[in-house]
């Protein structure tokens, strides 16, 4: 097995990285295959920090040993690409992004079928999980993952700036634009609005605007809909807000760390972003504006306020792992009601209905944020990016008009171009 996997690694690494820097990591020792060890790969996230601290508890109660690998989001994804592609059995439990990689992984047969496992334990209670997240971690009627973190897009704003300008918290997109405009005009150092601008990175946050204007990435028949009137208006609106009232010299590469930095440095009045990142804005160690941050539900567009409500991360079992029962034991423990509550108290919105119903589940959240989350969960849409196999490519296509409008191009023409390209892409996926 070992020799075969080395050859397979070499093969996959060759295919993936000839001429590139060598793929790091991958030193799974063969003793670790002993049934008493669970090898867990997790992303850098607040959730991971909580779990990491609690692992000794799991080890003590089960007698199993946990071998933890922790990586940044992109490195994690690359690591899966190499290891799962090679059919490696070196990963037992994997933290993955159901909406980004779920379809591709399920299609390639990387994820073990958990359908029987989730229904066996009534105390662990699979029925407690919210419907949207469950749908996202299922494939072809089978459960292939357990959601752990959910997200909705909310409006972050500066209470002090609004008060100084005598403005109310915007409830509609029009009010948001007017408020951003007046604040940007009043103080040249402060942007009215900031959000992600990177072609691919902005897609997930733009999606809520798209839905609120009445659009979606595809229509009911599965055809590209990014050229629809609603989509054109949404592109023009989102891009326009950043172009006209965004930071000066705005970069078109911003993902959340850059956009969040501008907001937490006190250089923007409004910011739309995932609620699960709120701690970055309210933690005085990270944010200059920690005491003046307010939260509200996403302002309503012509079709109402329709933010996404999605599971951003889930846990799955590697199909090639020979240690699947222990892997499941780890997942069962990490996603138990108690652990979910503990994670949620530490600031990670979870997928369990009972935890949200429990007052303790929202006790540590700012009151306005808890309200915004509750409202968003009700009206939320279950996806925040095109639901396809090759999500990376799809995001680049539908994100094109966002950056075009930010740099001043005509939203309508850019949307038409993207529409054609996206339709071609969808056709190629059907083949």
């Amino acid at each position: 097995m070992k020799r075969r996997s080395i050859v397979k690694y070499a093969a996959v690494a060759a295919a993936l990285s000839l001429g590139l820097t060598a793929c790091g990591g991958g030193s799974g020792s063969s003793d670790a295959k002993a049934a008493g060890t669970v090898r867990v790969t997790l992303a850098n996230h607040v959730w991971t920090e909580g779990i990491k601290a609690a692992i000794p508890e799991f080890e003590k109660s089960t007698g199993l040993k946990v071998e933890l690998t922790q990586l940044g989001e992109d490195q994690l994804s690359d690591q899966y690409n190499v290891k799962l592609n090679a059919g490696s059995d070196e990963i037992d439990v994997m933290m993955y992004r159901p909406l980004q990689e779920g379809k591709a992984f399920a299609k390639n047969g990387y994820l073990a079928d958990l359908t029987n496992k989730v229904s066996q334990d009534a105390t662990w209670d699979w029925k407690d999980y919210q419907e949207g997240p469950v749908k996202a971690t299922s494939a072809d009627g089978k459960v292939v993952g357990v959601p752990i973190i959910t997200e909705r897009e909310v409006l972050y704003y500066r209470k002090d700036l609004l008060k100084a300008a005598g403005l109310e918290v915007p409830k509609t997109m029009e009010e948001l634009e007017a408020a951003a405009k007046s604040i940007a005009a009043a103080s040249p150092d402060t942007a009215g609005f900031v959000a992600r601008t990177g072609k691919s990175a902005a897609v997930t946050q733009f999606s809520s605007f798209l839905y609120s204007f009445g659009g979606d990435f595809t229509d009911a028949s599965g055809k590209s809909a990014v050229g629809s009137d609603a989509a054109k208006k949404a592109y023009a609106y989102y891009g326009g807000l950043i172009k006209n009232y965004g930071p000066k010299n705005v970069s078109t590469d911003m993902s959340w760390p850059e956009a969040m930095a501008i907001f937490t440095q006190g250089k923007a009045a409004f910011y739309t972003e995932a609620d699960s990142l709120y701690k970055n804005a309210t933690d005085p160690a990270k944010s200059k504006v920690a005491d003046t941050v307010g939260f509200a539900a996403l302002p309503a567009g012509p079709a109402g306020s329709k933010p996404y409500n999605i599971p951003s991360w889930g846990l799955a079992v590697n199909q090639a792992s020979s240690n699947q029962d222990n892997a499941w034991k780890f997942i069962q423990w990490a996603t138990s009601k108690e652990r979910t509550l503990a994670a949620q108290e530490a600031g990670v919105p979870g997928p369990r209905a009972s935890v949200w119903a429990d007052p303790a589940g929202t006790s540590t959240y700012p009151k306005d944020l808890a309200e915004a989350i509750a409202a968003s969960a009700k009206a939320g849409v279950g996806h925040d990016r095109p639901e396809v196999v090759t999500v990376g490519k799809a995001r680049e296509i539908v994100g094109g008009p966002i950056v075009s409008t930010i740099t001043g191009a005509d939203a309508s023409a850019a949307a038409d171009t993207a529409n054609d390209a996206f339709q071609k892409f969808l056709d190629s996926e059907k083949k």
Partner: protein
Amino acid sequence: MSVLTTPRSAPPRSANRAPAARENFSSWANRHRKWLFAAPAMIFVGVLIVFPLAWTLYLSLTDSQGSVRAASEFVGLQNYLTVLSDAERFWPAVGRTLSFTGVALMCEVVLGMGIALLLWRPFRGEKWVRVAILMPLVATPVAVGMMWRLIFDPNIGFVNQLLALVGIPAQPWLSGQDTALGTTIFMDVWQWTPMVVLILLAGLTSLSEEPDEAARMDGANAVQRFFFITLPLMMPTVIVAILLRGIDALKTFDILYATKGKGGGSFHEVETLNVYAYGLSFDYNQYGLSSAVLILFFMIIIGSMWLLTMRKKAVSK
């Protein structure tokens, strides 16, 4: 060594005769010693270079995508045709790869030569200056990329704040569509000029003094002596520096990825062939296409290196 010098036909005369098997092996080893000693290196080259290359070549002829283990069909040269007719991503990436390498290399060699000439003659504090110059070389390229990304941030970066102090308006640097490639070239020059300095300095110190002195006697000034004496003598070393640095610059990946991410930015403004192939593999999972790009890229590298080696041979003669 006695084994090696013993004639093959003569049996060993020692009283304790070695067992037959051992003798057989040693005579076999003796006969094949040139292969035996080279074997570890050949296996290394085979496993780490030839096999991956052959496999990439095979993949480039299939429609492999999604997972390399999934069934794929042999499509002949289809991927190459697709790539070569792609004016949207492939050809601009070729252009960027060549211009990045060309400009960075030129700046590095000119700057490197200048600095090496300054360091040529001994002076006080020479050691410290050399250490200072070598600093960028020891940093990890990814860390260098991330550092410059912060420094060049258009809104909260150090450079723009510095410019503001002297009244110059903020520049987009890395975030501008037209300025991004130039900025990454600057980073490459910042990091790798020291390596060129090192190579050229080694060349300069090994030059003999006589031609220079003779020219000085004949009344040649510094500029004349540099262009007519030092530079021609240094040509082989300069070409070695270009060769070493050129291969590296062609396949630059880390600083581009660390500063602009997947796709080389929202408008692919710094997408070189390497970054493009990486995106095709890791983001789009199109292994067939990606392999075709890599094979073409490999040919570009081999081709340019071959040209340079020819040039070096001509100069050395």
